[in-house]
């Protein structure tokens, strides 16, 4: 599939910018996204090509505006839903629950 992920030969992305310190992960959520993606892969319901294909379903403008592990999260959600492990409404409900908890903690402090 030709899309925003198919970057070879495209112009306009500017210079390569290596980081000075290069941490493996930049946020705790990246660690968790990495780990749940690998661990879900152990369920044996998809291979690496299917993971990449799932990430490539992200709308092109969004793909280019988001970071690497956001692509992973998008792909993982999609695969888990497709394979029937998780329902979209379960994810939304859990997100809402966590958001309420966070708001509660913020109000307390």
């Amino acid at each position, binding site marked *: 599939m030709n899309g925003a*992920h*198919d*970057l*070879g*030969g*495209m*112009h*306009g*992305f*500017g*210079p*390569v*910018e*290596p*980081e000075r310190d*290069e941490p*493996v*992960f*930049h*946020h*705790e*959520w990246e*660690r*968790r*996204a*990495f*780990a*749940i993606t*690998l*661990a*879900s892969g*152990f*369920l044996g319901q998809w*291979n*690496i*090509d299917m993971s*990449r294909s799932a*990430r490539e379903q992200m709308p092109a403008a969004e793909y*280019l505006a988001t970071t*690497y592990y*956001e692509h992973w*999260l998008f792909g*993982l*959600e999609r695969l*888990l839903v497709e394979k029937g*492990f*998780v329902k979209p409404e*379960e*994810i939304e409900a*859990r*997100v809402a*629950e*966590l*958001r309420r908890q*966070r708001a509660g903690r913020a109000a307390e402090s």
Partner: protein
Amino acid sequence: MSGHDHPHDHDHDHEDGSRFSEVELRVRALESLLVDKGLVDPTALDALIDTYETKIGPRNGARVVARAWVDPGYKRRLLEKGGAAIAELGYEGRQGEDIVVLENTPTVHNVVVCTLCSCYPWPVLGLPPVWYKAAPYRSRAVIDPRGVLREFGTELPDGVEVRVWDSTAELRYLVLPERPAGTEGMSEEELAGLVTRDSMIGVSRVAAPAVP
């Protein structure tokens, strides 16, 4: 809720503001759902993070390169069947199912990219740096490799042929850099200490050791 709390939940909300607060919630939501459903084991998650953050990295690849520099038989096996020769040193696993080793010579310089995503030989190099996964490198390595190399401080004479290898999920590459001059008396371990990650991706060369 799973009650699976993360020790660092509190510091990054502040540093990122709202940029990642939603994605952070989604990751936590998904993780807690997976744990509640018994689909993933929380201790396995921590072990995976620890493995790829602290245990597997380019030191593995450096040992492979140094062995190839000192042992012609090993080098031959490495160039013939990379994955098997790498496994001889105990490096196997995910994203290393099939590794082809590309030898740099005075006339050929190899560079590795994954234009579509981020394929990379994890067992020998660990997880790729951000720049390897980002749009500038993925887009330009195949259309302006010499320009990209120059940004890494690597100037190649015109007579040197540049070969760019685009990785796939099934086939990953490791560059065998040239052994620098002035290292004849060095041990395998000292040689491994000279080998950089970037030289095994092919964006730089291994520098000769500083003369004391």
